[in-house]
């Protein structure tokens, strides 16, 4: 089972280039796709989900071009788009039965699966309630359930935890980890903690190009010894922001604790263990500066 993205570009009407010669190879596991807003994540997801066609390049599922034969992938695809709707007059069971029919699933098997999925996403109690009365988070959980209806080999989830409360977010992260065994999961998000908890691979994308593709460990390793923490006063904070690349600030009784990314330690700073957010910011900032750093070379996981 493999998914190969080969030199894929996408140019929208009006000339906006959303993806530029993007290449990536994927095998079973969870790929966390990270990038700032407008980086091209959703465009890539749409192409992989056969919703949008690439302008150039190709995507191969087990060696077959999905632009030529999309049904080969569609029959094993689970897709949770960033924005989707539901039919307000149907309840959760009816809506999932409808989508199971659209996906061509056997009625008896899909009924059993729907019950299990509703339990999985914690909607069993409200399964007979019209979807029109669901909150945003509940609709999102219906979306997660529909993506898993056909036991997909390729699961694409675009900003899946948007609208979920913290408990449901944790639940979903656990679910993704459990599901990742024998399938390819692509998790697109800008929430680094979601990726940190689940991803076996990370791809960082900016302005439609691949900035990095590596395991979380190797990304962290590359930024090891480049993360510093110091305490500054509130008055000094602005100056620090201008001088250094800051990944986070925390206000405490002794002042503002600032995490700084850099090759050399600022005066009075101590080295701290990096986290994925530090690695992500480091890669993005170096990419923007045009610096091709070791940590951010697309070496493949």
């Amino acid at each position, binding site marked *: 089972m493999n998914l190969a993205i080969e030199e894929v570009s996408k140019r929208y009407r009006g000339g906006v280039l959303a993806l530029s010669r993007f290449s990536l190879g994927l095998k079973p596991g969870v790929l966390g796709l990270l990038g700032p807003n407008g980086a091209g994540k959703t465009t890539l997801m749409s192409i992989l989900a056969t*919703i949008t*066609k690439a302008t150039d390049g190709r995507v191969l599922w087990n060696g077959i071009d999905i632009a030529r034969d999309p049904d080969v992938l*569609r029959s094993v695809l689970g*897709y949770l788009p960033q924005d*989707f709707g*539901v039919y307000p007059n149907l309840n959760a069971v009816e809506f999932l039965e409808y989508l199971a029919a*659209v996906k061509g699933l056997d009625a008896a098997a899909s009924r059993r699966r729907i019950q299990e999925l509703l339990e999985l996403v914690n909607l069993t109690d*409200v399964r007979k309630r019209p979807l029109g009365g669901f909150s945003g988070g509940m609709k999102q959980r219906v979306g997660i359930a529909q993506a898993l209806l056909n036991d997909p080999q390729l699961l694409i989830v675009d900003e899946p935890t948007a609208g979920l409360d913290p*408990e449901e977010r944790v639940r979903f992260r*656990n679910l993704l980890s459990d599901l990742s065994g024998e399938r390819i999961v692509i998790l697109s998000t800008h929430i680094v903690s979601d990726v940190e908890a689940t991803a076996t691979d990370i791809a960082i994308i900016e302005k439609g190009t691949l900035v990095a593709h590596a395991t979380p460990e190797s990304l962290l390793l590359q930024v090891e010894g480049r993360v510093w923490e110091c305490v500054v006063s509130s008055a000094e904070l602005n100056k620090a922001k201008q001088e250094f690349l800051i990944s986070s600030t925390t206000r405490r009784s002794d002042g503002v604790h600032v995490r700084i990314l850099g090759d050399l330690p600022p005066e009075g700073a101590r080295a701290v263990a990096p986290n994925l957010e530090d690695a992500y910011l480091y890669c993005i900032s170096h990419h923007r500066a045009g610096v091709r750093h070791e940590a951010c070379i697309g070496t493949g996981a």
Partner: protein
Amino acid sequence: MMRGRVLYQMVRADFLERVRRYSFLLTMAFSLYLGYAVYSGQLVLRLDEYRGVDNSAWLGSVIGLVGSVWLTLIGFYIVKNSIQRDRQTRVGQILAGTPISKGFYTFSKTLSNFAVLAVMVGVLALASVAIQLFHRPSQPINLYALLSPVLIFGLSALVVTAALAILFESLPVLRGGVGNILYVFFWIFLLASGANNIAKGDSNGGLRPFADYTGIDSVMSQMQSQVHKLDPQYNNGASFSIGSLHPTSKTFLWTGLTWTPALVLSRAMLFAVAVALSLLAALFFDRFDPARAGWFKQKQPRIILKAEVRNIALAPSPGSPAAETIADLSRMHSPAPHLTPLLRADLRTASRSSVRLRFIPLVRAEFLLSMRGHAWWWYTVAAGLFIACLASPLDAARSGVIVGAWLWPALIWSQMGTREEQYSTGTLIFSAPRAVPRQLLATYTAGVLVAAITGGGLGLHLLFVRNFEGLAAWAAGAIFIPALALALGVITGSRKFFEALYTAWWYVGPLHHIRNLDFMGTTAASSTSGAFAAAAVLLVLSAYGWRKTKLANA
């Protein structure tokens, strides 16, 4: 001053949002087409055997009436989405949090509707100049005589249309398909009241902004007077129609409208009517309050979610709901419940025969989807019409009851092909294997089922009496109506175009048993079942082609 700037910005933003859409180009194209229809003789104004000499006054009056008559119908559906857009884009929620009053909002929306319609009138005015210059170069151009009827009748009629669209959008019961269908009847009623006066030739020239809101009565009555002077035998016959079976044989010199004070005041009063309608709309406008938005819908029981219980649980006692929620929390970190794996071979190598078999569940799902969301009385009326078709004398059932039975499900058919866009489910559906042909055909089949069931009383009746000609006409209707709905839905992405066209067509064709337009085959004389069956096939193929192309170019 400040309010003026706010009003300007609101109207401007709404106007720009609309004119920067591709659909706006279509509306402009429609305006141009109306001009072309006059030029090519598809829209004909005649007074028995007479028509005017092709001068600026005649051309201006004809195009002025085209604008005020047709744009009041089509224009309504073009602009009746102003508040809905704010609701869908959620801009409305932002506006609701500002100090803008409801009256101010509905008034600004009326103005932006009017601005869009005014552009259409402007295009029509330019078309009239072009026609005069290129088609009748021998006649000297008189811009006042040419443009004044176009601008005055067009703008004064359309300002009311703009306000009516806002009123319909503000009233929950008229916001959707019911309003779309009722407006056609309202428009027909207004036209008919003006037409009655024309036929009698008794226009009194007084203030009649409501009875003659398109202006057709005022124009025709002055034309009738001129023809009377020329031909005392003239019997006040007049028509303004699509096409003409018999060409006019005589011409008269139409010197242009006399803008009497009563006529000018009547047109000016329409602006006041529009302001009043927009303020009336404010009374019903829900200010994007979701609690009020669905007040007419079935009340849904509130279910306390476990997540909410978690938030209020402080000291749970054993066995209490709160304790249960804590157990829930611990489950949250436990492995996910077991999911029964589906057979991979079953998913990947589904044979063609199994796919065919699975088409039936999809049709069932589409049918259930289309039938959901109606109140009990909807089904009661449908059942009553079914029984009436079966129990009435055949002639009455075929020429009368079926016409009602197949108008009743219009709002079900109008959702065909638009549901995926309306509810943003397209990405979920079209990422499924062979989704485009399967789902489209299933939607269509469900639509045919709706027609077969709601009009089934007549179908059975015709079968019992072995009237196979009638049965063929009935079957053609049953496959044509959903095909029309599907094609219009897929191509326009909106349900309102089918609702408007179907209602108007229903009124002209089946209700009046007009041959070639009677898609229900309500009489043996008016029935053209073969043509409508062929049209159904073409429409379904067009829908398929359009959707496939659209998705391929996404």
